[in-house]
């Protein structure tokens, strides 16, 4: 039982990180019907931003850690906006596939530039927040880092829902995701909303990057590839374009991965995760929370 609970905790903390990354994917997809391949690398940049920024702030302190995280999020928001402006906006009118290739190009560019600037070796991520191991009844070990990951993710999720549902700009985002043309007809500046969405998604990815690095403190320029893929799967699992869906998908995937890893089938973890995804999609083709869009002729 202890092991089950322990794995549950591990799974939820991993899943929280996936959820954060998945949110970025799903938001951009909702608005632009486009899979931002470079998102996983913004995650990586966030981690490295945290790594370098941490030198200017006190280690092992809440204030310092929070400051680093916020700054990294701002930095990556800016990065996301710049990428959108330079690489994606010119192609928005054209076919979806051209943007996809550009996104792949941007992803490779970030990875390789990162390798050039940061060096390809693994770097040790510093201890941002004070770490304590909380021993719970029954022999469970909860790391304060894990608690932090839940907490930050939950806070960001609530914040995001608030923005999307209760603010003017959130309403604008939803409008643009329903229908571009209609939105601009009612006076929404589509370009600005799209930039904002990218910025928001990238900020979340950066937060995810830092939280992930707190859990697994070894960072390298290619660290985003696998988590990015899994987060993307999570987003699709939950119904792509659906914000709560992305969160649900992320948590679910984190849990599945952790439990399978701890079982006899640990070498099949990725395959099992995908197989489950495929099964779910066969029975619910629009994902768990997605609405199946009947094709209008």
């Amino acid at each position, binding site marked *: 039982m202890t*092991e089950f609970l*322990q*794995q549950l905790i*591990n799974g939820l903390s*991993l899943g929280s990180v996936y959820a954060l990354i998945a949110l970025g994917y799903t938001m951009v997809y909702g608005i632009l019907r486009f899979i931002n391949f470079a998102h996983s690398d913004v995650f990586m940049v966030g981690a490295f931003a945290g790594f370098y920024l941490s030198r200017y702030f006190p280690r092992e302190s809440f204030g310092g850690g929070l400051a680093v995280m916020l700054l990294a999020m701002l930095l990556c928001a800016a990065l996301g906006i710049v990428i959108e402006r330079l690489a994606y906006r010119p192609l928005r009118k054209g076919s979806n596939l051209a943007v996809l290739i550009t996104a792949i190009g941007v992803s490779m560019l970030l990875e390789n530039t990162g*390798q050039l600037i940061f*060096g*390809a*070796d*693994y*770097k*040790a991520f510093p201890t941002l927040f004070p770490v304590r*191991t909380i021993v719970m009844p029954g022999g469970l*070990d909860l*790391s304060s880092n894990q608690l932090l990951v839940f907490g930050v993710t939950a806070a960001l999720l609530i914040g995001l829902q608030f923005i999307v549902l209760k603010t003017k700009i959130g309403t604008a985002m939803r409008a643009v995701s329903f229908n571009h043309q209609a939105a601009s007809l009612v006076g929404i500046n589509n370009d600005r909303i799209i930039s904002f969405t990218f910025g928001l998604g990238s900020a979340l990815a950066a937060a995810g990057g830092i939280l992930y690095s707190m859990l*697994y*403190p*070894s960072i*390298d320029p*290619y660290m985003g590839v*696998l988590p990015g893929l899994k987060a993307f799967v999570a987003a699709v699992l939950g119904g792509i374009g659906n914000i709560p869906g992305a969160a649900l998908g992320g948590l679910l995937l984190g849990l599945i991965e*952790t439990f399978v*890893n*701890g*079982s006899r089938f*640990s*070498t099949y973890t990725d395959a099992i995760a995908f197989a489950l995804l495929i099964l779910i999609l066969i029975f619910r083709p629009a994902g768990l929370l997605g609405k199946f869009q009947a094709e209008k002729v």
Partner: protein
Amino acid sequence: MLGWLILAAALAGCHKSDEPSGGGAEPIKIGEFASLTGKEATFGQMSHHGTELAVNELNKAGGVLGKQLQLLTEDDQSKQGEAKTIARKLISRDNIVALLGEVASGRSLEAAPVCQESKIPQISPSSTNPKVTQIGDYIFRICFTDPQQGAVLAQFAQNTLKVKRVAVLTDAANTYSVGLATYFREAFTKAGGTVVDEQKYSGGDKDFKAQLTTIKAASPEAIFIPGYYTDVGLIARQARELDIKVPLFGGDGWESQELCSIGGEAVEGTYFSTHFSPDEKSPAIQEFVKKFQDKYNVTPDAMAALGYDSAMLLVDAIKRAGTTAGPQVRDALAATRNFPGITGQITIDEHRDAKKPLVILQVSGGKFHLVEKISPE
């Protein structure tokens, strides 16, 4: 149509090979491939520094056979699949007389068939998996092999760590790791020890808690981790987080300063075997350490020392052969007896391997300290 035009133009472009400048006779070209970038960048960079240092020294002393040496280095990015093309390019287009590389057994294995086929000698500085030199008679190594390393580590576990029950955590995606795990297990069980549990991971994984939890349940007295430093740091951390207090030890794949920066407190007190320690007091070693530090601002490790020795040995063989022709250099290499390397006396045996002593290092205060030196039987 367009496709063919592009093909033609591109091939024409490929024809421009960069000719080295420098007056006088054509230099002797030595090829080197290493993981200068990518996951195991420190392996490649250290190895390259060592090789480069040797080549510069040799050139200052007049080169060999009256000609200067030119080192052509290519980066395989720590990736599978690049080594073969690189070897082909260096041999067929750049006309190297011999190839130095690689640190990782998996990548040496990729290039070896190409060298063997082209009759170009290849010297691996530190690939320890036996399969490497089995590819053919043009493939050599100047380091010990994993059967030896496994046996020595088993001995170390029994005699120094004094443990009888060990768990093994192997990187199942790494030829070196799997090989070393097997040889350790064989030697350890033969000496009366028991391997209480064996778990696997895949190089690049970040989360090992599942495997470590199972290992913990088997109550080992020590854990053997025959992987690369890139993963060991994280493994050690997570082991300590799971309250696993027993000693951890591994092989020469641990050898990198990065082990300490990633592993931090968790790797303090752990042990690993390798080929060379800069702590050794012999004048030759201390002189090498000083030269290396002066040039590169960092203390050399085993990969650097072996990189240095591989270049030195190659040039010595060329000198003995009196020519750079493949078959003669190969024969000279095979005939090497007691070549004075920084990493020890190098004698090439009939398998084209070298029987060298191992050093056991312990991590202490973020640095590696020499614990003991063991020669394989």
